[in-house]
């Protein structure tokens, strides 16, 4: 474990990714401070629409209605990052719990869980999310719940497999022999050994979810304006190519850089935890 951590800390690419992500999160969630500094907010409407970047009072210019683009991007960042993180976290919690229990207890319960996972996996997750988003009014909360409740199968499958293998290992058997409760064994012996799966999945899933949110916006069933997300800002901006290219560039770039960093991070974690990697 410590070896992995050391290896991870030495991976410059991963460290850079973490740095960028932290920076973006700080900016987004520090929006009130930044707004106070620039004396703008995401709602008030300036006299001019489509002001170019570096206009007085509007560092990144204004959008089609005359709202400050930077303030909108930061507000959108809060929503997009929250959706990504919370949905991924929710699916992770569900996935790990179900995977642990199914793998540890096995038997009939395990069969049922496997049946359920196979069932869910047989339909493209994107279709299910699309149906839910379209049929229930899409907003940030419904999206988080939908993605969380339907996106856990991959994690569950991995965790279950790993648990299956771990429960026959010596340290688990000896823990059982000294009479530790099942819950205790799961939490203090098996769960820590799954840390790598958990972290890798978390990073990759957040990235995927941010992309899914953008895709849903493109199909018209994502989070709806006036609530801003990077996805819907990008979707609506595609008709503004000639009016204000900056409106097209920034949301696209922020999605791209965020997802890229998350993928790189996931990759870096995988390498760091991979026992076959030669140091």
């Amino acid at each position, binding site marked *: 474990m410590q070896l992995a951590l050391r290896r991870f800390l030495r991976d410059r690419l991963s460290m850079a990714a973490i740095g960028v992500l932290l920076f973006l999160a700080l900016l987004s969630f520090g929006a009130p401070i930044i707004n106070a500094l620039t004396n703008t907010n995401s709602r008030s409407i300036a006299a001019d629409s489509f002001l170019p970047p570096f206009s007085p009072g509007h560092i990144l210019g204004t959008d089609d209605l005359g709202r400050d683009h930077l303030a909108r991007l930061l507000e959108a960042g809060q929503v997009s990052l929250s959706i990504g993180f919370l949905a991924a976290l929710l699916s992770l919690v569900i996935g790990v719990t179900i995977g642990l229990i199914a793998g540890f207890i096995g038997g009939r319960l395990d069969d049922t869980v496997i049946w*359920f996972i196979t*069932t*869910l996996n047989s339909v493209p997750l994107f279709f299910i999310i699309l*149906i839910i988003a379209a*049929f229930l009014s899409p907003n940030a909360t419904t999206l988080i719940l939908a993605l969380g409740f339907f996106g856990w199968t991959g994690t569950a499958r991995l965790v279950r497999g790993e648990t299956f293998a771990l429960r026959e290992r010596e340290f688990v058997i000896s823990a059982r022999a000294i009479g530790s409760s099942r819950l205790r064994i799961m939490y203090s012996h098996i769960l820590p050994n799954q840390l790598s799966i958990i972290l890798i999945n978390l990073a990759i899933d957040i990235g995927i979810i941010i*992309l899914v949110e953008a*895709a849903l916006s493109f199909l018209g069933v994502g989070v709806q304006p006036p609530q801003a997300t990077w996805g819907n800002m990008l979707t609506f901006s595609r008709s503004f190519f000639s009016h204000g290219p900056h409106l097209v560039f920034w949301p*696209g770039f922020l999605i791209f850089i965020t997802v890229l960093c998350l*993928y790189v991070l996931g990759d870096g974690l995988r390498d760091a935890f991979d026992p076959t990697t030669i140091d």
Partner: protein
Amino acid sequence: MTKFVVRRILQAIPTLFGISLLVYAIMLATPGGPVAALTFSPTVTPQERAALAAQLGVNDPYPVQYLRWLLGDDWMRFDSDGDGISDTAYLIPLDADGDGEPEPPGRRRGILRGDFGSSFFHGKRHVVDVIFERLGATFELGIASLVVGLTIGIPVGVLAAVNRGGYFDNFTRVMAVVFNALPSFWLGLLLLLVFGGTGLGLLPMGNRCGIVLVGGCPPFYERLEYLFLPTFVIAVGGVAAYSRFMRASLLDVSGQDYIRTARAKGLSGRMVWFRHGLRNALIPIATLLGPTVTGVLSGAAITEQVFSWPGVGRLVVSSITQKDYPTVMAVVMFAAIATILGYLLSDMLYALIDPRIRLR
């Protein structure tokens, strides 16, 4: 082999059953339901709407509604004496709307008998017909992106493994994620702007072929330029997955005994890689076929929209946004069947090429 296939198909039954339940549950949870979707005009009176609701049977208990979808209602309410007026009913009332007249006999045969009902749109045609006329286009796009994904992904993965830790390896590691970190609709639009008529003018901007008045599109090899961009957008996911998978698989194989033996025998590095390593490393690629089906279907939903490609993906999106319940339910069932077949096929392939695995 036959035994294996039969067993796998039998195993798919509970899965399909689960999907049908899932789909049905989602539909039931929808506010408004099909009645709202069908009575769109503001001139429809509340009474007319109530009558339609009775006719569609949305007031029946949920299990009954599910049964109707599964098995049809031609046995629930029918005409036993041949006068055209229904006189016998099981599970559902004879007179559903309470106007004193029995409703007409049930006509639906249920999905188990191949009747997925009629679309709310598409001229109220049978859903199955609507889906079937779209399958070809998506199949074409799916195969094309699979081929492109494999022909680029595998060599890249091999080279990355051979050059492990080198510049090429790191370069592919980054490239694999770069294209996948862009929202696919955005990637599609950018490509279209760059290569289409308003940009470089190298490629057409959509559809499956040029203007054809009568006779349908020419064979695909005469219109590859139309396939190029949409295939690329779907294939970037595949390229990334296959190349990473291939790299890992090859590295895994290279650590195994027979490769070491081969080396020990004095075979040259390249010989070892390609003679022994590659063949065995390719085997696990077969397992990716199942996930590929889901990937192509989800990718198609977006890509077909951008490139005006007349496939199932767009049908999924349009039926969902139009609240075309019968089509949505049928399309999801079909997607599930396609995915299950994909997994089955990949298991069979796996068994065929890997002598160590025997199908049980």
